[in-house]
């Protein structure tokens, strides 16, 4: 788990991370979104004890940054944004080196386990420099997990990967989520964040908002329900709008778009009203804004 309070990092006059207060429970996949230069990588470096904070505190897996740095590094795995390998050495040798540095009890067993899991076992003797970008990324993920860390920091794990490799990496992230690890995922891929993350934090030097993707949509755009009717008009929309919990209702073609906070509770009553008014309901669905819309709105407002 991760807990920060007022975590701040300044480089001279520049504030990279400001007053970050955050709590990520064990087993959660937390998406950390933000534009380039927002301070995401600095945050990862702070939380992995690679750099020290200017002020504030943080605990990772129960260890405090600044005082338990070695224990933090022992208990976390990091996939850096540009994960370099030792290109002249074989994939297996690369992992053996890290298994040794992470004091892994069964180094060869762990190396084999992750090379097999990520489909690299057959290429284990090849120099890492001969690998494609996707294979290198998989090797770097294996490196981050060799020591079975409780918390894994993944900085842009699928950036510049082809769709097939990206899909494989995303599946792998879901696999390790099932093992109960906490995953801190920095990504620009909002669709990926939407699919993988339990909660999302939008960050731009300071934390703008933290919530589940669904609640973020509701928070930014409100929840919208679309009633597809045989015929929709302004009179029908006005009847819906008259309900006290409806924030907005407007007709669009043969649909009525209704904004409300709690569709699960209020949809049945709206349906009863529409049926009572003689509107033929074809189907009802929730209008989902993409996470990209949410993100752009939040960053724009900041």
């Amino acid at each position: 788990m991760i807990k920060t309070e007022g975590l701040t990092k300044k480089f001279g006059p520049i504030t990279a991370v400001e007053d970050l207060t955050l709590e990520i429970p064990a087993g959660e996949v937390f998406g950390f979104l933000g534009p380039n230069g927002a301070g995401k990588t600095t945050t990862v470096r702070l939380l992995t004890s690679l750099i020290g904070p200017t002020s504030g505190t943080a605990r990772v897996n129960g260890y405090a940054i600044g005082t338990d740095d070695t224990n933090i590094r022992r208990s976390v795995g990091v996939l850096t944004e540009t994960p370099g390998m030792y290109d002249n050495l074989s994939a297996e040798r690369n992992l053996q080196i890290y298994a040794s540095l992470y004091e892994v009890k069964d180094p060869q067993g762990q190396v084999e386990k992750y090379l097999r899991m990520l489909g690299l076992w057959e290429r284990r003797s090849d120099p890492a420099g001969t690998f494609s970008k996707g294979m290198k990324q998989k090797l770097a993920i294996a490196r981050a997990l060799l020591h079975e860390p409780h918390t894994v920091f993944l900085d842009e794990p699928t950036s510049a990967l082809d769709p097939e490799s990206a899909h494989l990496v995303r599946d792998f992230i879901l696999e390790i989520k099932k093992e109960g690890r906490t995953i801190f995922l920095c990504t620009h891929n909002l669709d990926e964040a939407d699919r993988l993350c339990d909660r999302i934090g939008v960050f731009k030097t300071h934390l703008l908002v933290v919530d589940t993707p669904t609640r973020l949509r509701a928070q930014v755009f409100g929840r919208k329900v679309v009633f597809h009717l045989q015929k929709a008009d302004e009179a029908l929309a006005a009847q819906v709008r008259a309900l006290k919990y409806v924030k907005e209702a407007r007709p669009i073609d043969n649909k009525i778009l209704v904004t409300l906070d709690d569709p699960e509770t209020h949809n049945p009553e709206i349906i009863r009203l529409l049926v009572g008014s003689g509107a033929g309901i074809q189907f009802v669905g929730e209008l989902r804004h993409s996470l990209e819309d949410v993100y752009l709105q939040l960053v724009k407002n900041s």
Partner: protein
Amino acid sequence: MDKIKTIILKEWAEVFKNRFVLFTVAFLPLIMTAIPIAILVTLRGEAGLESVSSEMPAQFTAFCPADLSGGECFQVYLVSQFMIMFMIVPLAIPATISSYSIVGEKTTHSLEPLLATPITTAELLVGKSLAAAIPAVLATWLGFAVFAAGAWILIPNKALFAAILDLRWLLAIFLVGPLMAIMAVNLSVMVSSRVNDPRVAEQISMVVILPVLVAFFGQLAGLFLINRQLILATGGVLIVLDMIMVYLAVRLFQRETILTRWK
């Protein structure tokens, strides 16, 4: 200790696959060993040495053992010049290796994952330093052993052999050499903190060779004589310099500095 060993073995596995580094490590000691041996071969039975011996600096003539002839004394003088050149080996090899091992990690982006492991900064610095210094010291010692063996074979007069390979050589090779290697490594670490290209780091680090060249040409010109006292004094100065440079390198070689300023 295991982590230091892992770093050393990793460095050697990586760095020695670089042909340029391998060439420097292998070729330099070879040349520095071959030249004095070639001189000994050339001077064997050379009749005209007695006449040129009068050209030697006066302090060297006084220093030369009394039981040697003028020609033999000249051989000692000539070969001893290369004792100084031999000192390039423990300076150049670590400068080359550490330039590639530290700046190389920066350019290949493998430094951050390495720093994210539980390895301590001291273990990492010691590992990288030893990985650069050990081959240099071993190459120096091996080159010296080959030279000594060659001299033993080529010089029938064992008094001349003892004069050529006297305590000055032993002090230079076994005391000054390792101290110079430590200095070169630490200088490379410091230089690496400010540059991004291994070749630039190496070129700047090679500045450490300049004092050796000054000593070589200074003695050749008769400005001073490198005797035991001077070698011991050099050793003493190097110990102090090394301590200062180790302190500075450790101060500079911090995770945060490396990640945020080594760009």
